[in-house]
């Protein structure tokens, strides 16, 4: 536990003494901070520029234009250098947070 940060509580809860579950946000907990967002056309490699393997989201498109599937419902993967998509026009979100 650290001594410094900021936090906001839900209505009706004293931010100084309430449980973590009653907070809206707290710097105690790591939050996903977006590094890169894009659409990979054609499928292939995206260099993320981070020196570690980051957390990422990918969504592959359906046949209908503008429709996308669930996050992770595709064969994309990442390592400490690149994000590699498996389907054309895959949307991707790469975060600063490192896989743990």
């Amino acid at each position: 536990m650290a001594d410094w940060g900021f936090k906001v509580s839900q209505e009706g809860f004293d931010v100084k003494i309430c449980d973590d579950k009653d907070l809206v946000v707290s710097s105690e907990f790591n939050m996903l901070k977006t590094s890169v967002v894009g659409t990979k056309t054609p499928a292939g490699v995206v260099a993320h520029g981070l020196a570690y393997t980051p957390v990422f989201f990918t969504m592959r498109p359906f046949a209908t234009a503008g429709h996308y599937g669930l996050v992770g419902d595709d064969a994309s993967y990442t390592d400490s250098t690149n994000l590699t998509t498996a389907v054309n026009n895959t949307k991707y979100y790469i975060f600063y947070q490192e896989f743990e």
Partner: protein
Amino acid sequence: MTEETAYRPQEIPDQPFPQEGLPPTVSQASAGEGVYTPEVVKDKEFPVKRVAVELLSSALNTRSKRIIQEFQFTESGAIQVGKYQAGVTGDVRISPVGIVARDSAGNLTLVLDGETGDAVFRGEIRSGSLVSGKVTVGNNSVIIDGKSQTIIVNDGTTDRVLIGKQVGGF
């Protein structure tokens, strides 16, 4: 038959002017010497005009109504500047317990408590910088506390936002 009255012109004797005919003033010689000398009147200088130049020019500018230098004050019970008249004028009162100012509506616009050091201002406070241990904004809506190194924001019922230090809080 009545006796006729003889009228004669009234004669007015000559009267010398007050200084006329008086011998010039001379000093009286001491008896026996017989030497007469004129009385000597010593010259007398006109009194030098003295103006409190120091007070007017470098200590107190009466034209601009400004006090330029430090003055030493003697003890006094209290001072009241102005006379309060409802709707017309306010006043300022200075006493050993503090300073109180009222506006023409009777509202206290300035209060300095000489005992506790508390100060209340009705108007704005403007400053190039402000050094304070704790600042409370509104009715405890925001509290900035330098001692605890926190900023607390209250939504009117509970403290909702905490920024800063809370031992073991993060």
